[in-house]
């Protein structure tokens, strides 16, 4: 079965991102296809390249990146949500005159159309933090 996930909350302040990640791992380990993970609203912090995790808690941006690389999962951060929260790639940093890019490698910035496409292409779409 083809799945996509909608992740809406910050990985550092809410449980739902880690729940989404654990669900994603179970999906691919069970032989399902995970087509896309779409980070929306505060969920775009899952796509940060600059977060620093110092304690025992999971480093979700790194975990998502590793999952995407291992299983060819498409990670997309909503560009509207991401710009407001300072999650930007080099192109947006140049466009808005910001001193750094903060989007993690392996994740793309794109519009809500990518979530719509995931809804069309997937048998199931699960919303975390809705």
């Amino acid at each position, binding site marked *: 079965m083809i799945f996509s996930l*909608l992740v*809406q909350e910050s990985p550092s302040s809410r449980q739902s991102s880690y729940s989404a990640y654990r669900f994603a791992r179970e999906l691919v380990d069970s032989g399902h296809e995970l087509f896309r993970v779409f980070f929306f*609203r505060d969920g775009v912090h899952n796509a940060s390249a600059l977060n620093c995790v110092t304690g025992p808690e999971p480093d979700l941006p790194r975990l998502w990146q590793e999952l995407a690389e291992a299983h060819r999962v498409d990670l997309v951060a909503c560009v509207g949500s991401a710009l407001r929260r300072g999650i930007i790639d080099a192109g947006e940093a140049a466009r808005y005159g910001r001193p750094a890019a903060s989007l993690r490698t392996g994740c793309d910035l794109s519009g*809500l*159309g990518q979530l719509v496409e995931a*809804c069309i292409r997937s048998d199931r779409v699960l919303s975390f933090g*809705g």
Partner: protein
Amino acid sequence: MLCRSAPYGSSRVRDALDLAMALGAFEQAVSLLLMDDAVLMLLPDQDPSPAVSKSLLKVSGALETFGVSAVLADADALAKRGLAATDLPEDVTVLGTAELAETFARHRLVLSV
């Protein structure tokens, strides 16, 4: 799409409406179901200007333009807030518990924002 949050005080409803309109713009058959405090966004004559940058009233008025085919409201949520169907715009459909279950069953995907 399911929305349960109060219309002001967080960006959640704005983002939910953006997504509903994106789904409609890509010609997906989409219904917007409002439960709990989200039903308050349907009330006419909102004036949030002292509180927030933009009224949701115009955004919600644009839903049909963007292809959102149905706006649905939970009857129980309305009753708990002292509201009736007559307080809402005419094109809103009010659903009881059994109809809610039927609505969820009828849709291929349910997205909660």
